[in-house]
């Protein structure tokens, strides 16, 4: 019989994950105790749980790096920051969920536990270097999202979105798992760092295994991050899924996937001469295809979907810059960019979700006309989000893009830097369409949009995100120091 030694457990390291899991359970219990009651308590518990998790993350900033569960769960600055970003994404998405779900007439209480567990999956992904655990994290995150995408059961769009996401996601998981198997075969270990040590000693046979394994895993993670050519699900799924789910999907699953990719590339740094050109091409394609396709879209959620693709491309540039020149470029720009991306994307989705009313939701530009009459404040905040998505100064989107641009130049990735700059210009057109729809194209004739009170959660999320974006710009150095620590 096998005789495993029981792993030592450092509860502090896994405290954030545990807190979020238990919060999810509590939320579920509340839903069971008071079915069909309003969800105020559930939301309250969820938000408090998230805040506690965030506190437990920040409290560990000063702790030394450590591992637990037989080196499968790690605590380093990167893991902590990524967890924090995930929590922020979930927190902001939750804030505006209730009013939106009510407007859409799908205010099921189970939404809250599921999204919390989805968050757990993301947190697992970013706190491990073990490929199997990473896979588990991805699946926890994804399966929860598959369910949530289909939350609006009466809408065929939502059903289609869930199914599409599920089928393609499974396909990608196949790639990922196959890649993990190949890597395990080549190194005899599930730890990513084993790749680094195996590569220099490998003969051609093992090198082939490693390279193919790397490629397969990249396809799997590329799907989650929505890199071209694995991106095509993104607009369809974002459009079909309930808007608050799309918000978390765009922010949360991307943070998880990109953080996992970062870890993975750390292990595969030894063979960067091989993968760097391929990933450079992927980055350029991702930025460009996302922006070009967005130009002809007529639906706000699809635009945000394509926008998230191109932003994934920008972030990939930042990641590549780090691996091209690890001494000069840290993960500060990546973390800052992800923070700013989270705030602006969730904020933008929140404002778009105002299109929902009486069980219906219009997200096409023509259906969003004159939205500012409904909620001047929220739509005014949208201007900040869009300015940030475009990368206009006074917003963190500008600072983030600027830093990635600088990183790319520092790392001599001139081609990527140029592609990024050109794409920034391209993106202006379709983002402005969104503003134009809500502000300039007013409703005509007897169509009257009455001003409806906007929920406190919506106001809070708009204020938080818009304020955060501006503050993060003003205090850029402070924010980066907070994220990566004093160097």
């Amino acid at each position, binding site marked *: 019989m096998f005789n495993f030694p029981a792993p030592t457990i450092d509860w502090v390291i896994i405290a954030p994950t545990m807190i979020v899991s238990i919060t999810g359970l509590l939320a579920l219990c509340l839903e069971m105790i008071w079915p069909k009651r309003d969800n105020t308590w559930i939301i309250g518990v969820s938000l408090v749980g998230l805040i506690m998790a965030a506190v437990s993350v920040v409290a560990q900033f000063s702790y030394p790096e450590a591992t637990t569960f037989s080196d499968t769960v790690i605590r380093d600055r990167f893991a902590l920051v990524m967890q924090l970003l995930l929590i922020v994404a979930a927190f902001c998405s939750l804030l505006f969920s209730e009013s939106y779900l009510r407007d859409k007439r799908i205010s099921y209480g189970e939404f809250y536990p599921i999204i919390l567990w989805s968050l757990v999956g993301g947190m697992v992904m970013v706190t491990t270097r073990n490929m199997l655990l990473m896979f588990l994290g991805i699946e926890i995150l994804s399966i929860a999202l598959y369910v949530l995408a289909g939350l609006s059961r009466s809408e065929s769009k939502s059903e289609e979105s869930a*199914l*599409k996401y599920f*089928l*393609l996601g499974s*396909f*990608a998981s196949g*790639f990922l798992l196959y890649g993990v198997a190949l890597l395990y075969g080549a190194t005899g270990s599930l730890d990513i760092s084993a790749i680094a040590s195996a590569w220099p000693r490998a003969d051609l046979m093992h*090198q*082939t295994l490693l*390279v*193919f394994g*790397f*490629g*397969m895993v*990249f*396809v799997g993670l590329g*799907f989650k991050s929505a890199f*071209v*050519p*694995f991106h*095509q*699900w993104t*607009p*369809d799924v974002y459009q079909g899924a309930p808007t608050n789910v799309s918000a978390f999907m765009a922010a949360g699953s991307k943070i998880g996937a990109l953080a996992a990719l970062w870890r993975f590339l750390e292990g595969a740094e030894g*063979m960067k*001469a*091989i*993968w760097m*050109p*391929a990933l450079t091409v*992927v980055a350029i394609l991702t930025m460009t*295809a996302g922006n*070009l*396709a*967005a*130009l*002809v*879209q007529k639906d706000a959620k699809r635009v945000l979907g394509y926008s998230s693709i191109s932003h994934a491309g920008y972030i990939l540039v930042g990641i590549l810059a780090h691996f091209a020149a690890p001494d000069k470029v840290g993960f500060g720009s990546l973390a800052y960019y992800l923070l700013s991306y989270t705030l602006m994307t969730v904020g933008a989705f929140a404002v778009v979700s105002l299109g929902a009313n009486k069980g219906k939701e219009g997200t096409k530009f023509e259906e969003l006309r004159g939205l500012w009459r409904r909620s001047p404040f929220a739509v005014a905040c949208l201007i900040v989000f869009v300015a940030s998505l475009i990368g206009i100064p006074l917003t963190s989107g500008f600072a983030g893009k600027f830093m990635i641009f600088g990183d790319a130049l520092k790392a001599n990735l001139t081609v990527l830097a140029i592609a990024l700059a050109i794409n920034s210009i*391209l993106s202006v*057109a379709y983002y402005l369409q969104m503003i134009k729809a809500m502000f300039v194209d007013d409703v005509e004739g007897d169509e009257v949009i009455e001003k409806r009170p906007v929920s406190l959660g919506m106001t809070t999320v708009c204020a938080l995100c818009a304020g955060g974006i501006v503050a993060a710009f003003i205090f850029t150095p402070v924010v980066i120091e907070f994220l990566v620590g004093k160097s």
Partner: protein
Amino acid sequence: MEGNQSFNLIWLVLGFPLFGFLIQSLLGKRIEKAFGRRVAGFLAVIPIVAAFGVAVLLTKQLAGMDATQRAEVGVVQTLFSWIKIASINIPFEVRIDTLSMTMVLIITGIGSLIHLYATGYMAEEKDYTRFFTYLNLFIAAMLILVLGNNLALLFIGWEGVGVCSYLLIGFWYKDLANSRAANKAFIVNRIGDVGLTVGMFLLVVLLAGNKDKLGIDGASGRWLSYDVMLPHLGELLKGNPGMTTAIALCLFVGACGKSAQFPLYLWLPDAMAGPTPVSALIHAATMVTSGIVLLNRMNIVFQMSPVASAIVCIVGAFTALFAALIAFGQTDIKKVLAYSTVSQLGFMFMACGAGAYWVGMFHVTTHAFFKALLFLGSGAVIHAMAHNQDMRNYGKLFKYIPITAVTMFIGYFAIAGIPGLSGFFSKEAILGYALANDHAQISGVNFSYIVGWVGLGVAMLTAFYMTRMTLLTFNGKTEQWRSIEPHHHDEHDHAHDDHGHHDHAHHAHEDHGPDEHGFFYTDEELAAQPHEHEHHHDLDKNHTPHEVPVSMWVPLVVLGVLSAGGGYVLANNHLFEHWLYPNGLSVLKELEEHPHHLPGGLSLMAYSIIAAGLGIVFGAIIYFRGLPKKEGWDESKWSPFRRAARDQFGYDNAMVSASVDGGRDLATFSWRGLDATVIDGAVNGSGWLATGIGKVLGWLQNGFIRAYAAGMLLGGVAILGYLAYALFTGVKK
């Protein structure tokens, strides 16, 4: 001396007006509603008076310091770190020295009086608190301008007063002419600001390139602060004569804009469209003197550049002469004073050009006294005459408004240069320094001597046209307004109702003519404007002028006393000179004060007394009995000279035509020729291309899972294929 505790009070001087501004802007309307106008007005006056009180205390304290220390080093107080980029550190800091405190006293002192006056003058206006909001903000901005310890802060104040000036000129914004005047002032000032900014940047370039050499980098990057920069600037400029002249001229362009010198003077006469207290405070006593303050502050640059100094002299003298001549063609009492302001500012620049910077400041001070007095006096006259500003309607007002008349006569004698009054001393000093020195030279020609004589001539003209103004108003044979037939109008029973809209509209339309260039309004909008000036004349033969209320004549009396005695006190024993420049100038050292060997063997004093006397006598001969026929209502019978003077010798029209029409042609070209064809073509072309590719991508996005999966598979295969290729062809290191 940095951070000297005992000068901390300076923040109160800055803070009080700012606080007043906040009160007026945020709570003004409510206070006015709850407690009435008096309280609201009172709350606007108090901060300025308090600031003046504190400023007096600080000045006393400053006076107790060593003369050199207080004038050349001053006290620097830092509030917070403002701009910090790389090796530049520009804190928010003020410099308390004799120059800045002199200006602070003028600004808050005269400012208090004018605020007090305005509470009476504006008592019937609609937007009472809005007026005081702007006025308080103006004081705060002006204080920043003079107190700032670096050019960046000066610039903040510079633009701040510009904005306030714009807001106040356009205070009666519903009137087309007032808005136009405000726009004009703002736009013309921008031209000056370009000069100022370029000058500042040139200075920064010069300093940045040489800061190591001078060892001023040590002061924690504060190398743009006056106290760090100025002591070293002379040495630095010596090595770069071309740069020095360029900086000096650029700064002078800025000064020309704000201080209304030719060719940028043309906004100031139009600025008289604003309420009279504004004309007095901003456009006579304080803001327009900021050019002189700038020249004093940066005097080292001008000391190092005789060429720039000569240009300053020439421009100043020409402006003085030109504006004095125009004043003869004006019938609006405020316009006369406006041109006289432009002319007096020219005198100040003559002094600065000649190297006598302190004299420039001296004239700023005395001019602040008597010009504020004259403006407020004219305001009292206008107030008494139902807001009619045309001097041709006045006459024999002395017996109706004696206090106003007496104080205005003091102001008139002061500006005319009657010995013993304040204007005499400062003008004497200007002419003396100009005639006696030779700093302002271009290739050996001593321009300061030439402009000295021109100045003497202008002094005579000044006495002449001021006599004209005063006599037309207070003397004469008949009470001219008695010949105006009353017009009947339905809506307005009382002469004072809504005067802001009607009478100002009336005069402004007369003065500016229609908006022929369509610069501000289209024809349709113009046609839609109510023709208010056709309505009525409030001033008619049944009108009886009344003396102004106490809140208005008290400032007049105070200013009258200052105008009479201020010059003597300050000039006595070189008090003012040694206050500002105890050791003379850093480069030019002590300048000659009195010219020797003037032709005819007479002293300068004799010459200037003769000039003033001649001016007054000429004026009295022509105007003592009232308006001569050839200056009467029928302007077509005016002499050609007077008509030309009325139209500013065509200068204003030419400038407006050139800039507006020329600007429109340029804009049309860049629109049709450049934008519509070249740029739009490129933009539309690239947009078309991008959209086309987007459409293709959209077509790929067909929604079928099988297609997406195939895409992923192909992509995966491509990546794996490339990786294998790279591996086997040995791309790896």
